[in-house]
């Protein structure tokens, strides 16, 4: 595998700059304008206009590898897991059978919402840029890279997509205790990439070196360079440029409900991102690879005639295949929550359970939260997620939500954990950070009065 592909794969796994739009610490933040992304039945305390771009920046990662699984600080140098100076026993010790990493990101470009005259029905409009990344690398791949021993490497996959969503959300009371919310989303695809290898074997022994790859590639929204290989087949030869045109369209629906069982006890449930994305055939490049190359040495016969197979890794390219449109379900999530409030809602204790259906893995998360609302405009939450977290996964969120002025929100679950200077958690495989600023406008909510 070429060095550049390895570095890119490593960077994806390390940075996964993307974020899941959803920081679990924000679930119970009543003043937050992000709550409706968890459950469209939720509404903030006031109407709002987000400051463009700064109105909502959400980053999160989810997986079972962290920075310190892939980067090693040794003798003053920061080396990758693939460095020859990193012993294989150390490098492989904390990897899993399947190492996966997912992330999604929401960047709010435009966002505003307001209450209707009843102070209970809330509507909002948002235009967001969303990016999802999901990747998996089997242990056998790392084992091969570290030890050089032949491996049966299968199930390497990478998927990323990015789209703009225009969202209209409507939250309204069914009864005094039950609120229903629906979000309708129009999606415009910016780009999509998917690489999957059913097989990616390499053998290096005294009689034979071989490389065998079986896989598929799909790329939407990008123009690809092609070349004709020596055997006459057309192969992809790298990216040419971003096409700059919508590569697909889709729709999505979020449905949510809240139920005030008691004045102090609220239950909530939602299903988000029910929908599909259709990536058009016209803007999708598709490639397949099913190739084996081997080198068995030069054979020189008694007449001095030499024959040898050519062993060129550049031949391991995706052949151009017939393009076809791709339709995919959005990564649906199911969220269930419950919160019990004390002292006139100044303190609340909540539990939140989320299931996210990703490309390569279904991810679960249980979060316990303690919520403090000492003042009407000052909210703070602390949370702890129980599944898949490593080291100091304490979430903290702060929301300053006055009726006038600036609405500021910051939530993260790696506040206390060790992080890189670039604020990527070192030992934590799951990370969330949410930041937003907006201007409160219009009517206030009377949902809890």
């Amino acid at each position: 595998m070429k060095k550049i592909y390895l570095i890119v794969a490593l960077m994806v796994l390390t940075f996964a700059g993307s974020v899941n739009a959803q920081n679990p610490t924000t679930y119970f933040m009543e003043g937050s304008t992000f709550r409706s992304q968890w459950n469209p039945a939720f509404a903030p305390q006031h109407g709002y206009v987000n400051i463009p771009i700064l109105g909502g920046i959400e980053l999160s990662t989810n997986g079972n590898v962290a920075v310190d699984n892939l980067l090693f600080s040794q003798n003053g140098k920061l080396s990758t897991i693939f460095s020859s100076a990193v012993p294989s026993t150390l490098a492989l010790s904390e990897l899993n059978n399947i190492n996966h990493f997912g992330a999604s990101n929401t960047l709010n470009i435009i966002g505003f919402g307001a209450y209707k005259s009843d102070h209970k029905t809330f509507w909002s409009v948002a235009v967001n840029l969303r990016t999802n990344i999901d990747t998996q690398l089997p242990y056998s791949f790392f084992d091969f890279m570290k030890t050089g021993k032949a491996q049966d490497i299968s199930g390497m996959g990478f998927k990323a997509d990015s789209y703009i969503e225009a969202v209209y959300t409507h939250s309204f009371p069914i009864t005094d205790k039950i609120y229903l919310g629906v979000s309708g989303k129009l999606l415009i695809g910016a780009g999509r990439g998917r690489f999957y290898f059913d097989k990616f074997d390499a053998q290096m022994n005294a009689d034979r070196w071989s490389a065998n790859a079986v896989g598929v590639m799909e790329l939407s929204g990008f123009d690809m360079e092609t070349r004709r290989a020596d055997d006459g087949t057309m192969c992809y030869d790298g990216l040419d440029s971003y096409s700059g045109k919508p590569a697909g369209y889709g729709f999505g629906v979020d449905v949510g409900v809240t139920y005030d069982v008691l004045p102090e006890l609220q239950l909530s449930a939602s299903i988000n991102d029910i929908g599909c994305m259709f990536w058009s055939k016209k803007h999708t490049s598709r490639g397949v690879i099913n190739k084996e190359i081997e080198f068995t040495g030069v054979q020189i016969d008694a007449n001095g005639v030499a024959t040898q197979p050519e062993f060129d890794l550049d031949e391991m390219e995706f052949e151009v295949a017939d393009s076809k449109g791709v339709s995919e379900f959005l990564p649906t999530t199911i969220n269930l929550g419950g919160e019990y409030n004390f002292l006139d809602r100044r303190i609340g204790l909540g539990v939140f359970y989320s299931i996210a259906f990703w490309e390569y893995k279904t991810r679960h998360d249980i979060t316990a939260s303690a919520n403090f609302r000492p003042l009407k405009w000052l909210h703070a939450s602390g949370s702890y997620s129980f599944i898949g977290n490593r080291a100091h996964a304490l979430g903290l969120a702060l929301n300053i939500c006055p009726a006038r002025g600036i609405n500021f929100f910051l939530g993260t679950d790696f506040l206390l954990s060790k992080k890189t200077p670039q604020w990527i958690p070192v030992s934590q495989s799951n990370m969330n950070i949410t930041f937003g600023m907006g201007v409160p406008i219009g009517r206030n909510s009377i949902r809890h009065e």
Partner: protein
Amino acid sequence: MKRITPLIMLIVLGIMTSCIDKDYDLSQIETDDIAVGNNQSEFKMPLATIHFTSYNICSNTSGDQLSLKQLYDEADIWFPTNLPDGAEYIEIYRILDSEHFDSAYFDSIVHALENELQNDSDKRTLIASHIAAKYRNTFINALYDTGNSELNQYAALILDADQAEATAIISEIILSHASETEEAVQIVFRRFLQKLHLENIHTDIPKIEISSDIRDMLLDNLDDSSVENPINCLYLSGDADNGFPFIFQINPHVENTSIDFGQITVHQGANNIEEIRIMRDDMQRLLDGATFSMSLITMRYYPHRSFTDETEFCVKLRLRKTGALQL
């Protein structure tokens, strides 16, 4: 509220920045040493397999290029059927005109031959026919050199005789004038033995068709000769599969490089060529195409084991790299 908000933001920022670990500064990631394997790894790779047949192993001392098969078809005529002390082989290097010549051993072979010439009429006829066909003039001159008038007459008869007549005459005088014709037979025998010196073999190995990626993986991080306890090294080794009924002493090497395996004794069957360390420049020359050369000295011949023109001597070369393969 206006006073509190910045204070709260500062506190949060302070907490977050207090846990920065500069050892993990992502802008300082070292990527130059990405490799497959590690310092304890070892990789083996096939390099070349060179096939030789009887036609490649040959002599040119007589002016005609004779294959090994041709040489030893004639040798089977000359060598006694029953070797001294019931031996199964002849140590060729001890009877050739070289630094290893053993006169006592040579004499024992000659003595055994002479005994068979006297006692085995088929052997006598075979050799007489061979002398008449290939070495008539040499034999005639040797007879003249004896100074024996009777043998001189026979020499004159042989000169003008056809193959059958010459064979009969030679056979007759070997039997009847054993002591006088011994020297003549030995002269012809020694003349034949000169042919058993084998030529060096040269084979061109073409450029190895591996991509530049693979080439760089093999060569990039090699330790040079000045490094004590080197980790990243290349070693060349091989196998010599000898199908011929001989023990050879070979000296395989690659021209214009320091790749030299030294003297190796090769028995019939599989033989190991011990590995030698090769340096970067030599490996580059080998990958770019080089000439593989091999001198052969015949140590031992087993006359009762047959071989054909298709019998092969095969040298297989392989590479071993220690340390990681640099990407």
